[in-house]
C-alpha cells in the first residue's frame, strides 16, 4: 500500500460568534477557514483530518504542510505510522505542530479503514463512554458564569470548567459564585490560562481548593517549571500544566521528575497527533498520573481525541469548549453529550465521523496540493 497524494481543501467558516478564551488566544469571531487534509492511497482508501480552528485559520498552515510534510508521505506505506511519525516529527520546527498532528491523524484514519475498525479499537479499546465537561468562554461578570453553570447542570452536564477574566480577585469571586450556584457536589475546574505570577497563583489556588474545585489548570506561564514546582508544594488541589509546555510531547519528562504537575495534558492538534497522545498517556501511566486530553480546536480533532480517550484508562474527561458555534463545524453529526453528561465512542472504521463534504464543497476556497 502506498500514499499517492496529499491535498488540503480550504473551506470558509463564517458566522463564528464573538468569543474570548484568554488574553493569549485573543478575540475570536466572524470568519476563519479550515482545511480538509486528504491523504490518498493506491488502494482507494483516503485518510482525513481537519487543519485549523476558529482562532487559527488553516490557510496559515496549509502551504507548510504541503511544502514540508507532503514529501515525507508520498510514496510511503501509510501503515508504517511509527516511521512516518518520526519523519514528520523532525519537521516540526519548519512546518509547525498542527500540520504534523493533522497528517498523523489522517494516517490513523487510513489504518482504521484498512483494518475495518474504529481507531479506538485499533489501539485497543478501554471503554466506549466517558464523562464530559463544559469549558466556558471568558465573561467579566461572576453571575454570568454562575447562571451558565447552573443551566448546564440542569441540562445534564456533570462538570464545568471556567476560563476566568484573569484578574485574581475577580476570578476568586467568579469561582465562589459558581460554587454557590451549582451546589457542593458538582465538579468544577479553573483554567487560569497562564495568567498569574507566583503570589497570585497561590492566592487563587488557596481560595479554590477551599471551594473544593477539582483541578487548577495553567495558573503560571507555560514554561515556568520552577514556580510550578514551588506552587505544587504549597497547594493540595491537583495542579495541571503542560498543555503548551515548551519542547512538545518529547519534553514532558522533566515535568514529571521535577514534580511540577499532577497531570500531563495535550491534544492531537498541539502535540502531534494520535501517536503523540498515546505515547504520552503511557508515559503518564507509568508514573500513575492521568493524561487529561485537551479539546482539539476543531470537530475532527475532537473525534480523534475521543478515540484516544476510549483507548486509555488514565483520562477522566472529554473537554467540550463553548460555544458550539466557535468549535463545531464540518461534520454531519458532531460529538454530543447524552442525558447523563457523557459522550460516546465513534464506532465506524477509522475516525468514523461523517464529514460534511457538501458543506466543504459549497464553501471551498482552494485545493492546495
Amino acid at each position, binding site marked *: 500500500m502506498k500514499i499517492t497524494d496529499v491535498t488540503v481543501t480550504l473551506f470558509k467558516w463564517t458566522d463564528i460568534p464573538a468569543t474570548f478564551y484568554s488574553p493569549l488566544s485573543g478575540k475570536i469571531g466572524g470568519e476563519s477557514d479550515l482545511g480538509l487534509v486528504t491523504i490518498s492511497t493506491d488502494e482507494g482508501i483516503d485518510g482525513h483530518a481537519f487543519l485549523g480552528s476558529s482562532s487559527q485559520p488553516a490557510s496559515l498552515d496549509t502551504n507548510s504542510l504541503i511544502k514540508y510534510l507532503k514529501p515525507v508521505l508520498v510514496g510511503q506505506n501509510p501503515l508504517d505510522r511509527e516511521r512516518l511519525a518520526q519523519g514528520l516529527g523532525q519537521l516540526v520546527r519548519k512546518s509547525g505542530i498542527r500540520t504534523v498532528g493533522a497528517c498523523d491523524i489522517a494516517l490513523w484514519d487510513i*489504518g482504521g479503514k484498512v483494518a475495518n475498525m474504529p481507531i479506538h479499537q485499533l489501539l485497543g479499546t478501554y471503554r466506549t463512554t466517558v464523562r464530559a465537561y463544559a469549558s466556558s468562554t471568558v465573561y467579566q461578570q461572576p453571575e454570568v458564569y454562575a447562571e451558565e453553570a447552573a443551566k448546564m447542570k440542569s441540562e445534564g452536564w456533570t462538570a464545568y470548567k471556567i476560563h476566568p477574566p484573569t484578574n485574581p480577585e475577580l476570578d476568586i469571586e467568579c469561582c465562589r459564585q459558581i460554587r454557590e450556584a451549582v451546589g457542593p457536589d458538582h465538579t468544577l475546574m479553573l483554567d487560569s490560562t497562564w495568567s498569574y505570577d507566583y503570589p497570585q497563583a497561590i492566592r487563587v489556588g488557596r481560595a479554590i481548593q477551599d471551594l473544593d474545585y477539582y483541578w487548577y489548570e495553567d495558573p503560571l506561564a507555560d514554561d515556568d517549571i520552577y514556580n510550578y514546582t514551588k506552587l505544587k508544594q504549597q497547594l493540595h488541589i491537583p495542579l495541571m500544566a503542560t498543555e503548551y509546555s515548551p519542547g512538545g510531547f518529547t519534553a514532558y519528562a522533566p515535568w514529571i521528575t521535577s514534580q511540577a504537575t499532577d497531570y500531563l495534558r495535550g491534544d492531537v492538534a498541539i502535540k502531534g497527533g494520535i501517536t503523540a497522545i498515546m505515547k504520552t498517556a503511557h508515559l503518564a501511566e507509568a508514573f500513575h498520573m492521568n493524561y487529561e486530553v485537551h479539546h482539539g480546536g476543531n470537530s475532527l480533532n475532537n473525534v480523534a481525541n475521543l478515540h484516544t480517550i476510549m483507548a486509555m484508562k488514565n483520562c477522566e474527561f472529554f473537554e467540550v469548549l463553548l460555544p458550539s458555534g466557535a468549535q463545531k463545524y464540518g461534520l454531519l453529526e458532531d460529538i454530543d453529550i447524552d442525558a447523563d453528561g457523557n459522550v460516546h465512542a465513534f464506532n465506524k472504521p477509522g475516525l468514523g465521523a461523517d464529514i460534511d463534504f457538501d458543506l466543504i464543497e459549497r464553501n471551498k476556497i482552494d485545493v492546495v496540493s
Partner: protein
Amino acid sequence: MKITNVRLTVLETDQAMRQFELITLPGMHRERWLHAPDSSELKGSDSTTHKKHEFVLHVDTDKGITGHCTAISEGVASITETDVEQLRGLVLGENPLYREHLYQKLHQGTRWVYRVPGWFGAFDNCLWDIAGKAAELPVWALIGRVRDSAPAYLNIRGTTIEEAANDAQESVASGFTAVKDHFYHPFRQNIEWLSAIRDAVGPDIELMHDPVAVYNFEEALTVGRTLQDLDYRWFEEPMPERSQNQLIQLAASLDIPIMANETLMFDVDISAQWLISGATDLLRFNARTGTTAGLKLAHMAELHGANIEFNGNGGLWGLVHAHLICSVQNTSFYEYFPGGWHDEVGKTLGMMNPIVPVNGRISPPDAPGWGAEWDWDLFKKQTVEVWE
C-alpha cells in the same frame, strides 16, 4: 466479538529438560553462586530424563477467530492449569478487541488473584493475534511499523577463550554485525576474554557484555572501564538488580550504557522509577509479559530519550519480538540464541516459520496477526495434554 474459551496445549519437545549444577566462582570479592558453565548447555536427548514441555495458549472467539501464543517455557517459569482456569473465569464473554480494558483489569487485578506480575502476558499476545486476524493485518501494521527489518545480535558460546573468539568470528562471517557474550568467569579472566573477542572481530562489530549479575560494585567498575576502552555497546546486568544505589553510582561512573532491569522488566512502573533514578540507561523487556505492557514501556522510555532492548524471542519462537522490534522506534536489536532452542524447535511442534536471522537480520511476516504458520497435525502429534 466475544471470548468463548481460553485453552492451553502442553507439547512435548524432543529435548531433555535442563538441569543445572550450581557452583561458586573463585577469584571474586564476594561469594557468588551460579550455574556451572557447561551445565548451561542442554544435555542431550535421554529417554530416562523428563522431556522439556512447551505451552501454547489459545483464545477462542464467537467469530471463529482464535488467537495463539506460546506461554512461558517450562523451566523459565511455570503456568499451571489453575492459572488457565482463573484466567478463563475472568475473561469469558469479554470482547477480545477491548485490549486496554482487559489489560487494566488483569494488571490491576493481579494482586487480587494472587498471581505474579505479567502472568497474563500470553493471553494479551493472543488478543493481538485476534485483532490482527480480525483486521486482516499483521501486528506490525496494527501498531504502525517503523522499519521493515532489524539487525540481530548473536549470543556467542565457548568453553575456552579460543572457542569463544572463534564463535564470534564465525558469527560475523555469517552476516551478524553484533554479538553478545554471557561470560561469567572470575572477573579478571572475563576481562581477558572480552579483549579477545574485540581482537577477534575487529573495531566495526557491535559487542555487548552480559555477566548475568556476577560482579560486585568494584568488579563491575573495573570491567566497565575495560568495556569502554574496548568500545562495547552496552553492559548488561552488571550486578544484582536490587542494588539500586550502587547501580546509580555505577551508571554515573561509566560512560558505557548500563542495562540493569532484566529481573524487574515485567513491571513498567518499577522500570520507570529505575530509569529516572539513573540506575539504568537502557530498559530490558520480554513480551512474555504482554505486548500491551511492552508498548507502554517503550513509549515511557522514548519520552525519556532511552532505548528498550528486547530480551530473547518474546514468544512464538521469535515472531512476537520480530513484530515489536520493527514497530518500536527506540530499540536496536533482536536477540538471537543459536542452536535452535529459541526458534527452530518451534518447527518440531508445528509452528513452521520461527524467526531465524538471515544475514544477521530479522523481519516479521506479513500474514494477519503474528503470522504464525501452523502444521496442526504435527502440533496434535506433539500434544501431551490440553487444559480446556
